[in-house]
């Protein structure tokens, strides 16, 4: 086969210009379907159970913690005067930030025709949705009277209550709920053709019915594909501004206030960069073990890893620039309160958290300048975890160190979380991983149709591809 194919090619491009293929080992189209669907069809592997059981337990802990907090009072958490927000808002922003990579990959990279997105977009989108779900818990339950949360929505009611639209918390409500809705829709629309594949391969009745319902009668006809592509493109267009808007608006929660350390115009772009940075960090953390465990190394290749490392490097450097710029502005702005806040951030009682953040977010990604590091899954995995930790501490630094020493020295304080704070946060991991593991088990973890479309065989001009009768 190869010999005939080679005869048709005039000459190979020079080695250094040849791109690493996005599907390794010249895998065939049939193999791709098999490899992805197998995850949902094979016997449940042991590692899945080993991961699932603790996840469910932690999810249960989350429920207990939230129940305790709602019935007893916000006081079970560590936030206090003057730091009225603590881990609740830190975790909210952190999870929301993680939820940024999915939509960026699926929408912006789609519009930019970045073909490598296909290998990772499905899992990243799932991660986005679950992360936003985890994030949404915090603003909903951190308030004093959870049962009145609906007052934050513009629902006509007999009390003549209406939200106060000047508050960035209101913008948050709209931004996050819109983001979640669009991301979920986008994800589901993308899933439809692949669910149909699982449906077609399903052996049990229940599976046939369930996937049949979920795949909305997909038949793979040209008309379906045509409508699907249009719909997908529109959704990608709708999602793209959301990638920028959500975290911009979350950043306005801080920037609109007049607290030194929050009140700064750099926040929207800096938050978006940070969110993408943390999102890619989390995608790497999740996909590096997954490609091994699910035996999908040929679909999520080292080239994918390499590219994601580069995005991390770029956004991490933007974040590092923002940190420096904040300091510059604090000095240049001449406001002594502002200046003190930033000095206190770095050298005050919470200085350790600042340096932890700085090391994780600014120094870590710089390792990705080196190709051998980008190619070493173990190093990348460890560095990606540092990115996650660093981004958590970024939110910690912003929320806590700004609040703990503000204008009046009389109200300065020191914030410590309680065990309930910690268990609630760990509990959201339980929720996240429970959902993610269920997703792995029941949905195609890679966009089968799209990956097929980027194989050489799908390219009509490729020697092995399309109408010229390649291999299936």
């Amino acid at each position: 086969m190869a010999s005939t194919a080679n005869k048709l090619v005039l000459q190979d491009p020079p080695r250094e210009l040849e791109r690493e293929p996005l599907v390794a080992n010249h895998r065939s189209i049939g193999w791709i379907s098999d490899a992805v669907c197998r995850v949902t069809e094979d016997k449940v592997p042991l590692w899945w159970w080993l991961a699932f059981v603790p996840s469910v337990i932690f999810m249960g802990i989350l429920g207990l913690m939230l129940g305790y907090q709602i019935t007893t009072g916000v006081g079970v958490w560590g936030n206090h005067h003057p730091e009225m927000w603590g881990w609740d808002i830190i975790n909210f922003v952190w999870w929301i930030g993680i939820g940024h990579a999915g939509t960026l990959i699926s929408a912006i990279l789609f519009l930019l025709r970045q073909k490598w997105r296909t290998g990772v977009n499905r899992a990243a989108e799932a991660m986005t949705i679950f992360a936003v779900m985890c994030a949404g818990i915090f603003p909903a339950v951190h308030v004093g009277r959870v049962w009145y949360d609906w007052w934050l929505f513009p629902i006509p009611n007999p009390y003549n209550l209406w939200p106060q639209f000047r508050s960035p918390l209101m913008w948050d409500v709209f931004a996050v709920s819109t983001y979640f809705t669009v991301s979920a829709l986008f994800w589901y629309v993308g899933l439809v053709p692949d669910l149909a594949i699982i449906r077609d391969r399903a052996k049990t009745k229940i599976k046939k019915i369930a996937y049949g319902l979920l795949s909305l009668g997909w038949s793979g006809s040209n008309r379906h594909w045509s409508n699907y592509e249009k719909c997908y493109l529109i959704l990608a267009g709708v999602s793209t501004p959301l990638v920028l808007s959500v975290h911009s608006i979350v950043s306005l929660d801080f920037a609109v206030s007049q607290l030194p350390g929050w009140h700064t115009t750099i926040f929207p772009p800096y938050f978006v960069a940070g969110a993408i940075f943390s999102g890619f960090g989390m995608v790497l953390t999740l996909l590096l073990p997954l490609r091994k465990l699910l035996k999908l190394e040929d679909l999520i290749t080292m080239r994918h890893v390499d590219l994601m490392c580069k995005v991390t490097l770029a956004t991490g450097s933007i974040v590092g620039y923002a940190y420096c710029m904040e300091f510059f502005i604090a000095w240049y702005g001449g406001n002594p309160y502002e200046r003190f806040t930033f000095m206190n951030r770095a050298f005050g009682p919470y200085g350790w958290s600042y340096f932890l953040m700085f090391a994780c977010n600014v120094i870590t990604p710089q390792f990705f300048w080196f190709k051998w590091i980008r190619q070493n899954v173990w190093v990348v995995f460890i560095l990606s975890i540092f990115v996650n930790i660093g981004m958590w501490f970024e939110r910690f630094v912003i929320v806590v160190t700004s609040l703990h020493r503000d204008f009046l020295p009389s109200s300065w304080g020191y914030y410590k979380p309680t065990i309930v704070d910690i268990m609630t946060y760990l509990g959201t991991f339980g929720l996240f991983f429970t959902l993610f593991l269920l997703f792995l088990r029941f949905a195609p973890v890679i966009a089968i149709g799209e990956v097929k479309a980027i194989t050489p065989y799908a390219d009509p001009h490729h020697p092995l591809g399309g109408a010229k009768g390649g291999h299936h």
Partner: protein
Amino acid sequence: MKTIPPPCPEPETTKYFRSIESLENSPEARAWVDREFPAGASENEGDFNRRDFMKLMSASMALAGAGILGSGCRKPEQHIYPFAKLPDDYVHGVSKFYATAFPTRNGAIPLLVKSHEGRPTKVEGNPEHPDSNGGTDVFAQASILSLYDPDRAQFNGPREAALTKLGDIATKFSANQGAGLAFLLERGTSPSRNRLQLAIQQKFSAAKFYAYEPVDFDIHRQAATTAVGRSVTPYFKYDQAKAILSLDCDFLGGDGESHLNMRDFSKSRRASKDAMNRLYVAEALMSQTGMSADHRLRVPSSQVIAIAAAIAAKLVAGFDASKIPLPAGVDAKWVEECANDLKAGGATSLVVAGYRQPLAVHLLAHAINGALGALGKTVEFRETPDLKEQGIAALAESLNKGEVDTLVILGGNPVYNAPADLNWAVTQRKAKTVVRLGYYEDETSAVADLNLPAAHYLESWGDVKTADGTTVIVQPLIQPLFGGLTELEVLARIGGLAEMDAYKITRETSGLGEEAWKKALHDGFVANTASKPVAVTFNPAVLAPALASVTVSAPSKENLEVIFARDYSVDDGRWANNGWLVEVPDPVTKMTWDNAVLVSRKTAEELGVKNTQFVELALAGKTVRAPVWVVPGMANHTLGLPLGFGRAKGGRIANFNGKQVGFDFYPLRNAANQGFAIGAKISPVAEQYSFACTQDHWSLEGRPIIREIIPKQVGDPKAVEAMDFPPPPGGNQSLYPNPFDAIKAKGLHQWGMAIDLNTCVGCNACVIACQSENNVPVVGKDQVRRGREMLWLRIDRYFTGTPAAEKIRSEKNEVLQPDWDQYKQTWIDDPQVVTQPMMCQHCEAAPCESVCPVNATVHDEEGLNLMVYNRCVGTRYCSNNCPWKVRRFNYFDYTKRPITNLYKPTLTFKPTKPEDEFELLKLARNPDVTVRMRGVMEKCTFCVQRIEGAKIAQKVKAGQSADVIVRDGTIKTACQQACPAESITFGDINDPKSAVSLAKADSRNYTTLEFLYTKPRLTYLARVRNQNEKMPDYHPMPFTSQVYSDHSGGHESGGGHGGGTNGAPKKEGAPH
């Protein structure tokens, strides 16, 4: 607003049935059996339609749903009962004020007490009293809570039986003229008590009277009596004094009648270029008076006598101080220049000695006053009866000899607080019978035979004399809740006197006719009863014998001095079960729910103890284990031991959660050294303690939040304005107009407040007044430790170091150190202290309002920043965005749960004794103010209920006319009303003639954080530090201004003004 109804009468008899048969045969049961449907079923026939059915069903479904959700989200079930008959002279919801008085040890505070539906709810000072301006102290304000204390003592058996026993005592001792009968009293000024005491002494000539106060201000009387040779009490006129030297006398805080002293002191403290008083303080502990001082010398208490002698040597002719040399380390120039200043003041100078100081120091003070010609000018002497009660040591001796058959203890708590060497718990038992009248079931009642519950002063008839001698009738506002007795009743019964009713006794003592009596009750005082000052001269002969025995030995590291101090919150322990007082931050340490071994930085360093570390403190064979707390400005080798905590048996608050609150230092205190003692040793213990301190950070960090000027700058607005933040180029412009500016035009009034920092001494009276007025809950030590105290009004207290010390500090970058390390920093050794009442600033462009997503905090057209509790969801963003951090969040259901049980999950939590935990305390609440539930934010409202009340009253008065503007002075906020120094002014800033407008027009007026342009309605008047240029510790600028100047010199690249030592903080305008 919920209104608590008067109690519903109980059904007359409970119906029991004896047997099933009798129940079956009752008419009701017969009717039940005879009827086919139960009563009421048929009545519904006519109009029970589908809608009613739906209503019932949906209601029960809703209830079922609420049940599932758990009590956490359920509306409380409440019942209301109407009056069957309306009492005469009663309008529901309209409060009444009654004049009465709060008795103190050596005086009284005349009061007007507010009563709602028959229950007293708020204590206010009586401004009509000739010697009062309506100010009160922190204890009078908090006394209302003690009235409703569920831990109050009650009769153990029937009340009548106890009273009979008292009658038996009278009968028993009428046989032997009272031999073996002893009374132990507290200090008091009641004319009726004096009269009964004399009557008993006439009847029982052998009966003995003793008096004991752990914190005894009687030394002032004793010293004055000794000094002038007749029975007099001194009356210090701080308003006349221009140069005051306090010899360890905390006359603005811990000493007697401080509310009065604050009022008078503030009068001569009012800012002016040349007529302002100047305060010199020589003391060991940092006190409220020390915080207000212009020049403060820190010396151990035992060395104060040397300072007094040195001053006397300069001023008193013929006095030789060579036997008492100045202690090492005291600058002789300080003493000399202080003496010169006092001399220059002459008759307008005043020297006072503190109650802890021995008689000799008091006599020296009188001698100096005499030499200055101040006797009769700044200190008056007023005739007082000398009852010649003996001290507790004499009683102990008598008990040990077995001379006492029956001991009657009226008030006090000697088992807890008597001198340790008397071993009182055992000594007391040597009397055959111990009768005790006590407010609590405390340590003393545990070893008494007959315990009688004492009535609260708001439950009892009585009389007292204020410091000027004016008689004030103590009028009850409520029947004794637990049937308690007054001192007068017990004395009369034991004395077997004819009249045993407190009302009649009081009335008889007053000798007033019907109309005069009514007037006295109405006005709150008996007019023209003030005692007249008597002309006296100092008798120099008394000085020599008093000083003969004086030996001054300096304390050292191995030989520490301890000072037994009256606690600012719980006094000598009598308020240890009052939640408001236990939780109010100490004015100096800002500590709540605790006391500690107070120590200076250097001493702590020498002894090798860390802040909050436990130590074993040994003195004369006794040891106490307690943690230390480093206090700036403390004398070295001196330990401050605030009394009143560590109660073995005190009640729910004093023994919070079954543990003693704070530490008991009485075991170290002997009869011979009630004030201070030398010879203590400390050994550190490797254990830390956790304090609940409301202000962790001590330094102002050079921020111009509190501004200070010097007298020269009074009247120069630039002096204060210069500390404003430089405006941006082009001036302060807003991008869009503030919507409030348009709304403002609609308001009839524009409320505003001004606080004069120059007269504020940080006494906390306003804080408790606010708590009482606004139903602010007590949250417990754990919550305070977590920074969740609920006080709407707090007093910020900052220390500022000498410029040199501050310079070292900023070079070492100690500014950025964690707060728990600041106790090691050297700048705290000789600080200047500033205080600032801090509450909602009522910004016109309020940052809290714009960030609330649900419109829960909004502005009204009169400029109040309002908090709508019902609308609050509890995002807490408003607090984060409040630059003053004055908003308070209900993290738990503080008003519904016992604060020991805040963390119990709602579903498993069962209140133990709801009836006495909550019901009684509820009576203390102000029905005009909403009680907040958990999850909502709250804050100062400028007492909106008082504003609205006044507006409604004015509208009623105006009728059809347009005269609806409330007159200036009609509304006093709770804090303003309570402030004895009159530091707080409130009113309508629309009216240019109103007091608040005039205050705001003062050159010292400034806005905190003005550069945020939130336009606060609360402004402050800068403090004036009146230093003597000749003093060695003179500094041309107040430390705060100096540090500000040094700091801002940095941020404006050093241009123009920096270390200006020309006697003025930056005179030029704001730099650009």
